[in-house]
């Protein structure tokens, strides 16, 4: 008898929980049509045509460090993907991933600067989208804030 009561209680609890899961899924899907970037904790990347072209350029970057702005960096483990793929590029010395705004800072070895295209490929391999590349900090290192 007690087992039966437990089963009934468990089933009702499960029913309520599942109802919650389905409701949240429906609400989430309904919210999928919102303007891009509105739910990413307030950060939206604005990209010019020149910046877009830089991510496809085969020419080495002109700076010793760069800030890569990426989309799809939704979790702590994604940042590890980014870190590992960037460090496979010859010339990349250090990487710091800031999850708050999809900001990845990379420092390069002197004279061994990678191209925007190579960085873009690494980001593709990491499963995120490189939106634009900017000049990184000149002095100090953001990896040790």
């Amino acid at each position, binding site marked *: 008898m007690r087992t039966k009561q437990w089963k009934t209680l*468990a089933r009702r*609890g*499960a029913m309520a929980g599942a109802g919650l899961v389905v409701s949240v899924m429906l609400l989430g899907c309904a919210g999928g049509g919102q303007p*891009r970037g509105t739910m990413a*904790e307030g950060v939206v990347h604005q990209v010019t045509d020149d910046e877009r072209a830089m991510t496809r350029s085969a020419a080495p970057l002109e700076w010793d460090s760069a800030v890569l702005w990426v989309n*799809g960096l939704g979790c*702590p*483990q994604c940042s590890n*993907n980014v870190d590992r793929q960037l460090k496979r590029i010859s010339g990349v010395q250090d990487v710091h991933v800031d999850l708050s705004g999809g900001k990845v800072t990379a420092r390069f070895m002197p004279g061994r600067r990678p191209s925007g295209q190579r960085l873009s490929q690494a980001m593709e391999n990491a499963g995120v989208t490189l939106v634009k590349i900017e000049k990184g900090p000149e002095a100090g290192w953001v990896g040790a804030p």
Partner: protein
Amino acid sequence: MSRAAHRGRTVQVLGGVGVVAAALGVTQAAAQEVMHTEAATMPSPGTGVIRPQFHVYEYGTRPGSDEKSVREYEALTRISYGLARAWAVSLDVPVRWTDTLMTDGTREDDEGVGDIDAVFKCRVYRDDSDPISTLRAVVLAGAGITSGDARPFGSQSVNPKIGGALTMVRGRWGFNQDVIYTFNTGGRRETNMGGEGPDDALAYNSAVVYRVWPPRFSSETHGAWYVFGEVNGLYETNGDNELRFTPGVMYEGRRWSAEVVVQLPLADSLDHRPELDWAVGGGLRISF
């Protein structure tokens, strides 16, 4: 083979899995993955994830048999590896023990290695709409392949499977959905706990994930706490259909994750296998 020899072999298998895990080192994984629902995420090329899990399942009476209740312990190890951009492969190795209470009050126990699932994952769609949000879809194809273990849990067959999974992340929320069809070519009704018998099986799972902490990522975020709820469905072509509810908690760091779940029966119509009373599970995800 004697029972002691069976135990020895099981220990060897578990030991082997442990040695492989240790030898592989330890590093990265994929996010928004929960315990029982597939996600459209994968390790990047040249990296992998080892995912040891332990589950306890308590089942009721098996229809048409002398089994009153069955408790199953499962040590499941999944190894996923990124093969190329948008391509990954995973292997699931389950080691199982069951303790069965018969209607006459006697007990029987079995142990063995179940079928090894080898599944390729190919990402067919990705839309990263902002720094956090993404929508991804993958196609899954592979097979449940007998481990060669002649004890009760091996099907002695190769069972192809095909399906897909969808993952959506919107700020603190994540959603996963999968559908996987298995063409069973072997298996035994007497030991089937769901999807492992001679009948084809359709698994359909949904999951909602919510990031509890931190509410906003910062430059110093190295880990996050999530709660999630899954609805796990399994239909077999013999007419059996079952829904389970699985709430859980997960901590995700940059190189490892840990998760615990409870699983409860939601609804079922089962004439060929025992229904679930409850289950608990826990696991780790370690990147290498």
